[in-house]
């Protein structure tokens, strides 16, 4: 990337969070200052970012911090983090299959590692290790392939046997009698979980402190394109003139792109997840089984968070379904029979913008000034920081940086797909 970011803190605002401040406010019971300031919507901005999730807010933050572009508005039709950023299972990892993918997500993990310090916000990143179980010789072979690609890119990742798996996750059934015996696993020590809401709020606070305007409940209803370039956006509250629009709307990205007349190779699928009541800490790693379509982690509060594969048909509905929770529970019990009496508290769904090759779409479109950061499918949250950094650079310099060059929209017409299905998530 382009060396060290330029720091442009303005007059010590916002006040840094500290232990002394916590004690002082606890004793005086004075109110905490607002996390960020609200502004009226201006009639024009240099850059308008559609979508107030981790991608949009990170792009705004890095535009301001790394490039000094602060006349930026982030628009969201709901509240910030109300889409995929608040609905994912908060797992971070970089053990992908293609060298392009590994490099990209490794950069993201590195940004996440220093995020709490950089944003002065406790994002609770816990690098507790990540296990991807292999239940067949074929998947063990893929794990070896992934481990070698990972190591060649400098990412800590190795294949381990059932005894080592049992040592890391004692409650897993690794007996040979299991319906899907555990033959080994891809172990990725830097992987882990984070508090996803805090990431969104931290980026919002950091961006707003540098002058970015965040407008919630501001739905984009049209994009003004004339002469092949962007002139502005229409919102439910009025028009905003701008020459650069970034579409960072995940599951709704085809609707926004359609307003600019850009067709996308994207279909929207719901992805469901569930959480249990809190139990004592017993699971120290993230456990994923592609064969069983499930991933499990235990939060710091003790709740078990489960995710699975996308629903079997496209939809914009975010309702949960009974057959999902039924099959999920069955699969979890095959991995960890001891969980039979644990109760599920709630389930929910988020929307995934799936692409044909399970890689994202980033960069320019045929409409000048209309940029994409979409196609994030089931793996968008973990890529938030690096996407924001790369899209900020793309906007500031007018061309995509090398790290996202393979992910352009033109790869579909050129036939240069980046096949990431083998490691994108659990089986699709």
């Amino acid at each position, binding site marked *: 990337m382009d060396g060290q970011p330029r720091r442009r803190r303005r007059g010590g605002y916002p006040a840094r969070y500290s232990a002394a401040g916590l004690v002082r406010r606890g004793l005086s019971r004075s109110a905490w200052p607002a996390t960020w300031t609200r502004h009226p919507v201006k009639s024009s901005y240099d850059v308008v970012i559609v979508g107030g999730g981790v991608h949009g807010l990170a792009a705004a933050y890095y535009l301001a911090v790394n490039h000094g572009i602060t006349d930026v508005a982030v628009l969201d039709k709901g509240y910030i983090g109300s889409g995929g950023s608040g609905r994912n299972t908060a797992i971070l990892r970089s053990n992908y299959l293609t060298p392009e993918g590994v490099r990209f997500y490794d950069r993201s993990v590195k940004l996440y590692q220093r995020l709490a310090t950089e944003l002065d916000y406790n994002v609770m990143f816990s690098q507790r290790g990540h296990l991807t179980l292999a239940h067949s010789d074929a998947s063990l072979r893929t794990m070896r392939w992934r481990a070698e690609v990972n190591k060649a890119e400098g990412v800590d990742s190795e294949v381990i046997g059932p005894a080592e798996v049992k040592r890391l996750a004692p409650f897993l059934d690794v007996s040979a009698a299991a319906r899907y015996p555990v033959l080994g696993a891809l172990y990725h020590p830097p992987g882990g979980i984070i508090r996803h809401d805090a990431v969104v709020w931290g980026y919002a606070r950091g961006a707003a402190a540098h002058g970015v305007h965040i407008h919630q409940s501001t739905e984009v209803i049209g994009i003004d394109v004339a002469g092949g370039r962007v002139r502005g956006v229409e919102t439910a509250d009025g028009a905003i003139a701008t020459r650069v629009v970034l579409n960072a709307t995940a599951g709704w990205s*085809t*609707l926004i792109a359609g307003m600019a007349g850009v*067709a996308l*190779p994207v279909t929207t699928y719901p992805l469901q997840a569930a959480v249990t009541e809190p139990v004592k800490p017993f699971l120290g790693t993230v456990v994923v089984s592609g064969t069983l379509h499930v991933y499990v982690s235990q939060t710091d509060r003790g709740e078990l968070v489960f995710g699975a594969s996308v629903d079997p048909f*496209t*939809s914009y*509905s975010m309702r949960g379904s009974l057959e999902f929770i039924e099959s999920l529970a069955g699969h979890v019990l095959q991995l960890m029979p001891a969980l039979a009496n644990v109760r599920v508290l709630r389930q929910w769904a988020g929307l995934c913008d799936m692409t*044909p090759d399970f890689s994202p779409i980033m960069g320019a479109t045929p409409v000048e000034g209309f940029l994409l950061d979409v196609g994030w499918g089931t793996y968008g949250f973990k890529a938030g920081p690096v996407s924001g950094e790369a899209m900020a650079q793309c906007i500031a310099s007018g061309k995509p940086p090398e790290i996202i060059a393979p992910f352009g929209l033109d790869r*579909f*017409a050129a036939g240069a797909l980046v096949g990431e299905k083998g490691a994108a998530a659990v089986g699709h």
Partner: protein
Amino acid sequence: MILLPCPWCGPRDAAEFAHYGEQVPRPDPGTATPADWRAYLYLRANTRGWVTETWYHRMGCRRFITVERHTQTNETRMVPPGTATPPTGPAAG
């Protein structure tokens, strides 16, 4: 769970079906340019609202059927047999 109105079997659980997705006209392979063909392969309207799409009743009559579905609410409407254009090939995997 959503119910799909199979014109041959009646309303059935969507889990009995495979979703083939929106119907995209297949260009003539003899005259299509690579760009046409890749647009047919990859580009989708991904409409939010009523769509006409193909499902395969794999655990029922094993026929390809056309159904209208609202992608926000998942309401469905039956398309009577004979009135739909036959599917021209798998549209989405």
